[in-house]
């Protein structure tokens, strides 16, 4: 069980992720629709884990990841990308992301990845 911040610019994806995470007994402590908002909410809410979309307006997921890692080097962030954005994923992992999921995703696998990262 973890306290999770869901970051994605589309409400549809946020709602889907929230549903999946909630069904896995996780608490959703907040949601953000861009990188800037995510960094602010991370500092305010101190979640156990963040699911972070890569392509977002204002500040993208990679920049937000860097900002969060700078503020908290122990942050657990799972990147959420579309197929074809694997280059971004590599950069994200180098920057400190602990896991990544590829859209479209299936609920059991998302929970597996999130639980793995939470227990790491």
């Amino acid at each position, binding site marked *: 069980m973890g306290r999770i911040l869901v970051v994605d610019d589309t409400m549809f994806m946020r709602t889907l992720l929230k549903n999946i995470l909630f069904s896995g007994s996780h608490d959703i402590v907040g949601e953000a629709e861009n990188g800037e908002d995510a960094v602010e909410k991370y500092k305010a809410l101190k979640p156990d884990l963040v699911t972070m979309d890569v392509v977002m307006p204002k500040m993208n997921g990679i920049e937000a990841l860097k900002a969060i890692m700078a503020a908290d080097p122990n942050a657990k962030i799972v990147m959420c990308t579309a*197929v074809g954005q694997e280059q971004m994923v590599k950069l994200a992992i180098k920057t400190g992301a602990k896991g*990544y*999921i590829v859209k*479209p*995703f*299936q609920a059991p696998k998302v929970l597996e990845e999130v639980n793995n990262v939470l227990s790491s």
Partner: protein
Amino acid sequence: MTQLPVKLEHGGEWVSLKIDLDEEKIVIPEPVSAEIKIKAIDDLEEKKNILIISTKKSETIKLASVPKVLQLLKRAIIMGCTAYRLTAYFMSPAIRGGVMVKDAKWEKGAIAVLKTGIWFVSKEKQICIPLDEVSGIELTKREVQGRENEVVQISHIENEEVITSFVLCPLTTLQILFNYLKDTTKDLDVLSGELDDMSAQVAMLVYSGMDTHAIENMISISNKKIESIYDKLIEKGLVEVVMTRREVKLTTKGVRFVNESVKT
């Protein structure tokens, strides 16, 4: 010639015998007494530990054995039978349900496209993707040893999980493989624009494992609306009904029972 112990289906029964295998043929002793040229084989299917071998003459041989024996047989058949075959690197499985497989690696081997399935063959493994379970074929880019390369991405369904594999080979061959696979599985294609946004969202939610009640709540639509979207998806062959949920209301007897049950 290698002798292999198998159980072979003959006359409706499973018979234990030892078959002989070499690069060109499989020799089956009595009571079957048959010789099958590997080149005459045009399809191979695997169902649990049973191999189904089909020949150009429409003969079908079903045999079962231990994994090690089946591995030898599969390798000999896939590498020698009549099929579209090419040398390539493959990574399978690479993604399961949207999550990268942690220990996935590129393996050198061959890809063979048979009548009913795509086979990945390397020294260590033989993986079959049944063609009727292929959910997507795409040409995409992927970083391999620090360089960006074009790869063919094949997704298929296995035990309700979406599994993605990648194939890497020279670009011209890759294009031929992509076109061949696209053509072979064209019946499963859905034209973009065939579905409205709402129906596409519902399809995505079903993919992610959401049930009807969750979908209704998530995108705030009525049961009537979701039923009409389901009808559309069923008509296009995109979903199938697995369960019909009933809605009920209490009868007078039911109301009486509930009232009684709350009395202390």
